[in-house]
């Protein structure tokens, strides 16, 4: 059985790479310190592969057929996609994939009741370009990106996302080779409203409530209380990206998350935060 060595979740707003200088000095300092610490945590866990979970941003899922979850099965990924490059302000990069692990998720997921789509080609925007720039700046850890539908109703329910996370964790533990070290990285959120009336606002109260719930480590309560309605009320166009965090939560189980940093960064048009679920050192 393989081992899950790290589970983290973090915001991926493009302002973090694209116009961070427009934020106050203290916001800049805290976010840079927090993302640096999260990167250290992740790399110190020495994962052989990162399973990423993030909103697809209407970039790869065509309007006529929106899967809930799509696993990237390619052996190599490149980013950022051309039109997004000057927006995210991240130089072109390449990162290895992990087709064998990806196909294990697809195959075993089907047996466990999860209809994973899969793709050898996926365009990357801020969903991976922003996190990887800070967490694995050498792009030296293979990535299995899971793009999910966070913003095209009907959305996968919070309960379903937690269940998917549990299933992913179980597949890793039961169906992957002993010695393999896997990290899970969810990206998206916190409160933001791209395309809505709260475009220039952040819902700090919602964000701190959600982070508090994660720190209490009660997945049942989170599924019950952090409804899609509440997420949309905190920013209709983007806050439901926290469904990706629910997948990480499902994989983390009853562990209590630790908030690494949080800033209600109106300058970045996003509640910016990062958490890690402490994993027992097994090896």
């Amino acid at each position: 059985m393989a081992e899950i060595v790290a589970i983290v979740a973090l915001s991926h707003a493009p302002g973090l790479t694209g116009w961070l200088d427009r934020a106050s000095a203290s916001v800049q300092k805290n976010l840079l310190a927090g993302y640096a610490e999260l990167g250290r945590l992740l790399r110190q866990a020495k994962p052989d592969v990162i399973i990423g979970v993030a909103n697809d941003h209407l970039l790869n899922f065509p309007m006529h057929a929106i899967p809930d979850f799509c696993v990237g099965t390619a052996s190599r990924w490149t980013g950022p996609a051309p039109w997004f490059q000057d927006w995210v302000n991240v130089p072109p990069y390449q990162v290895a994939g992990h087709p064998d692990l990806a196909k294990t998720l697809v195959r075993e997921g089907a047996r466990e009741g999860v209809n994973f789509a899969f793709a050898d080609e996926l365009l990357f925007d801020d969903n991976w370009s922003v996190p990887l720039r800070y967490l694995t700046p050498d792009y030296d850890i293979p990535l299995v990106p899971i793009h999910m539908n966070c913003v095209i109703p009907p959305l996968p329910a919070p309960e379903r996302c937690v269940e998917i996370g549990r299933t992913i964790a179980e597949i890793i533990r039961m169906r992957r080779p002993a010695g393999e070290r896997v990290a899970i990285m969810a990206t998206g959120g916190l409160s933001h409203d791209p395309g809505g009336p709260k475009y220039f606002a952040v819902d700090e109260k919602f964000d701190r409530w959600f982070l508090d719930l994660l720190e209490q480590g009660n997945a049942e309560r989170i599924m019950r209380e952090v409804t899609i309605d509440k997420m949309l009320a905190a920013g209709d166009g983007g806050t439901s990206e926290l469904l990706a965090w629910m997948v990480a939560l499902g994989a983390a189980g009853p562990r209590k998350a630790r908030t690494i940093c949080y800033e209600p960064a109106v300058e970045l048009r996003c509640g910016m935060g990062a958490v890690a679920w402490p994993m027992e050192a097994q090896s």
Partner: protein
Amino acid sequence: MGIRDFDRTLASNRMIFEVRRDAGKLQRFHADLEATMAAYGLTDVEKAAWRNVDIHRLGELGVHPYFLPQVSRLIEGAAYNHNKSAAARLYAAKMKIAGEE
């Protein structure tokens, strides 16, 4: 207007989806909006909204909210997209919401 009101069958949504993914389509979109709109089969009301860069109206017609700031970036450019950037200000003005001056 919100993600629950968007219309996935609206021609404008497919147009935006595709031009962001393909450099050739993007170039044609910029070079000849009318030809691109015709190619995607936009209705007359959709076309009128595009001609007026009426971002709010596009949202009313069923363009996905997430696309609306992207429309502002298709028009004004996407680099250094801070709250006082031309794209962000275009979005605020067209959506009639308070932005930063």
